[in-house]
């Protein structure tokens, strides 16, 4: 996977969504791929300082909380840290931040803020493109 690039769009803000995004991103980065994630609309929850520590389970699926504990699945905070340690690029969508009246300092450290063109520029030569 060295010399390959993975471009991910994260547009949903639940706990399941967060695991999909950060597990795939971490596995790709651990396989030496260059990884970038564009967080837009509800996906911004995944990198919001407070929100990412307590993401909601889908309605009616709250009982999965126990399963996550039993399976010893890492927390989203931990996975974000892992992703950042492995140089996964985190891009927050400027337009959505404006719509939701959010500032960069309400997000975890180390993110970039950009628009659609920033992501397209990153993704133009990606080998794998995923949307969650």
């Amino acid at each position, binding site marked *: 996977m060295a010399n390959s690039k993975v471009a991910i769009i994260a547009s949903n803000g639940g706990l399941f969504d967060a695991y999909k995004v950060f597990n795939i991103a971490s596995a790709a980065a*651990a*396989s*030496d791929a260059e990884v970038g994630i564009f967080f837009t609309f509800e996906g911004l929850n995944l990198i919001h300082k407070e929100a990412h520590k307590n993401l909601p389970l889908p309605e009616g699926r709250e009982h999965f909380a126990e399963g996550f504990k039993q*399976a*010893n699945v890492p927390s989203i905070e931990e996975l974000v840290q*892992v992703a950042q340690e*492995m140089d996964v690029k985190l891009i927050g969508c400027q337009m959505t931040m404006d719509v939701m009246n959010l500032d960069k300092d309400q997000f975890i450290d180390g993110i970039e803020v950009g628009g659609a063109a920033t992501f397209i520029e990153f993704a133009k030569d990606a080998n794998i493109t995923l949307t969650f």
Partner: protein
Amino acid sequence: MESVKVLDAKGLACPMPIVKTKKAMDQINSNEILEVHATDKGAENDLAAWVKSGGHEIVKSTEEDEVLKFWIKKG
């Protein structure tokens, strides 16, 4: 089989065994062997796929009392 380093990844769930293996692998030299212990059942297929990405090789693997052990030679 002589390993220069042993990684205890027991109890860890996906993707952590791969992440930890990657970090441990970065600390050894080419042709040296890393020994990985894991209990995540997905680790068997995941490690087999992961070694391909970095040009490494699983030279031996065992399963004993639900603990999977892998000896990975760094490429």
